């Protein structure tokens, strides 16, 4: 060992040298991408709880020579421990279940259908992905990739991560980033579509007050949904099961210490690790491709189609059902809880200042979470 040699070997290991080496520019760009995600999260409030860890993980994963995301690196270990195993998204669903109040859905069950219509975005996007890979030579998505891209339309982070980690882990990074970014953009994406598809008269519809829901009904609901899922679609039971387990912890009222931990410390710890691990999938060679552009465009389409699907079914239901339904609550079916429901409320207030749709929109909103988990179950069952 001598001084010059040592400096030289350190120089070879530096990021500067790494970025100048072949392929290094890719890492450099990915680090910039990570910084942009962090900036969007902090300055624009884009889902900061996820995009800050994802962005930071993306930066760490692209440090030349550090190998943080390669075998033996700590992000590689966290990824295998929590995402390859499926544990992290399921634990987040546990916490989400413990935070969710299904009351508005129980009070007005039929609005659940809107949470179904909005899943149209998933399958339309799936077909879109297949068409893209047929007509764009640079893009080659197989059925699994297409399914993983489609799930962006579910507008539900854990579901998207769970499905993508099973069907096409290589796309996980870009899919998760697209999903969370568009969730943050819901207040910008949805309103024009909602206005275009509804008449001023429809937007002014006031809905009748939701009935009171008893504690017992709230306790029975998660069990009921789980049983249905067991009977019809076992492939969706990990997701639906953990969501309903969390909700049962909350509604049972006898295990508050578990419910509180599930919706606070546990979900926070898992979010930090999940975000870093998702970011570790932002490898330059996977991300800096035409395919990523395809994913970004398809993801946007997914949100738009989902929104339209929800609104159109709401219009139809309004025609058919005896008590009126304001079509604006249809868009909340895409999930993106509670942002989408807030958007419905906001647009509703524009055309009728004392028409509060929030509670009515929460029904389709939470139904959308169930709907996308069911869609994920179908895709898991048929694309494996």
């Amino acid at each position, binding site marked *: 060992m001598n001084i010059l040699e040592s400096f030289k070997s350190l120089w070879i290991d530096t990021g500067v040298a790494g970025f100048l080496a072949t392929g290094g520019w890719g890492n450099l760009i990915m680090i910039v991408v990570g910084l942009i995600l962090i900036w969007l999260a902090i300055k624009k409030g884009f889902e900061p709880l996820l995009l800050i860890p994802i962005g930071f993980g993306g930066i760490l994963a692209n440090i030349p020579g550090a190998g943080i995301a390669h075998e033996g690196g700590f992000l590689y270990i966290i990824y295998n421990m929590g995402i390859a195993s499926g544990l992290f998204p399921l634990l987040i669903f546990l916490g989400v279940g413990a935070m969710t109040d299904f009351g508005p859905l*129980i009070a007005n*069950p*039929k609005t*659940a*259908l809107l*949470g*179904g219509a909005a*899943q*149209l975005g*998933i*399958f*339309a996007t*799936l*077909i879109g992905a*297949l*068409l893209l890979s*047929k007509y764009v030579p640079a893009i080659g998505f*197989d*059925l699994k990739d*297409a*399914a993983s891209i489609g799930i962006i339309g579910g507008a539900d982070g854990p579901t998207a991560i769970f499905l993508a980690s099973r069907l096409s882990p290589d796309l996980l990074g870009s899919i998760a980033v697209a999903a969370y970014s568009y969730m943050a953009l819901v207040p910008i994406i949805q309103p024009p579509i909602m206005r275009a598809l509804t008449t001023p008269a429809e937007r002014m519809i006031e809905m009748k007050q939701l009935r009171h829901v*008893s*504690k*017992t*009904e709230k*306790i*029975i*609901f998660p069990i*009921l*949904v789980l049983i*249905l*899922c067991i009977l*019809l*679609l076992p492939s969706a039971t990990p997701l639906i099961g953990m969501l309903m387990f969390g909700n049962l912890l909350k509604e*049972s*009222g*006898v295990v508050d*210490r578990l419910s509180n931990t599930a919706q606070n410390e546990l979900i926070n710890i898992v979010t930090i690790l999940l975000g870093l691990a998702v970011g570790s999938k932002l490898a330059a060679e996977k991300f800096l491709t035409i395919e990523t552009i395809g994913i970004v465009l398809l993801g946007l389409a997914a949100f738009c189609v989902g929104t339209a699907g929800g609104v159109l079914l709401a219009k139809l239901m309004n025609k058919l059902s005896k008590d009126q339904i304001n079509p604006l609550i249809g868009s909340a079916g895409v999930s993106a809880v509670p942002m989408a429901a807030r958007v419905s409320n906001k647009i509703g207030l524009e055309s009728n200042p004392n028409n509060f749709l929030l509670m009515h929109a929460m029904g389709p909103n939470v*139904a959308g979470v*169930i*709907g996308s988990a*069911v*869609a994920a179950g*179908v*895709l898991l069952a*048929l*694309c494996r």
Partner: protein
Amino acid sequence: MTEGIILDGLVLMVVGMSVVFAFLALMIGTMNLCAAFFIRFAHLFPDAPVKTAQPASKADDCTAIAVAIAAIKARIG
């Protein structure tokens, strides 16, 4: 073959949306049954929060220390 895969996509769409709607429709049905039942027999389900054995029996605790200990196994086991 690429034809085939597009068809697969359409199949997935038809099957997937049907399953989603079937699931939610059944969910709505059972929820309505439930609701009907609960509205009919509401009086049988007072809305008081369910109690566990231990808060109940906490009544017979008489010292601060007891309360402290009460946290143990009854909670975790």
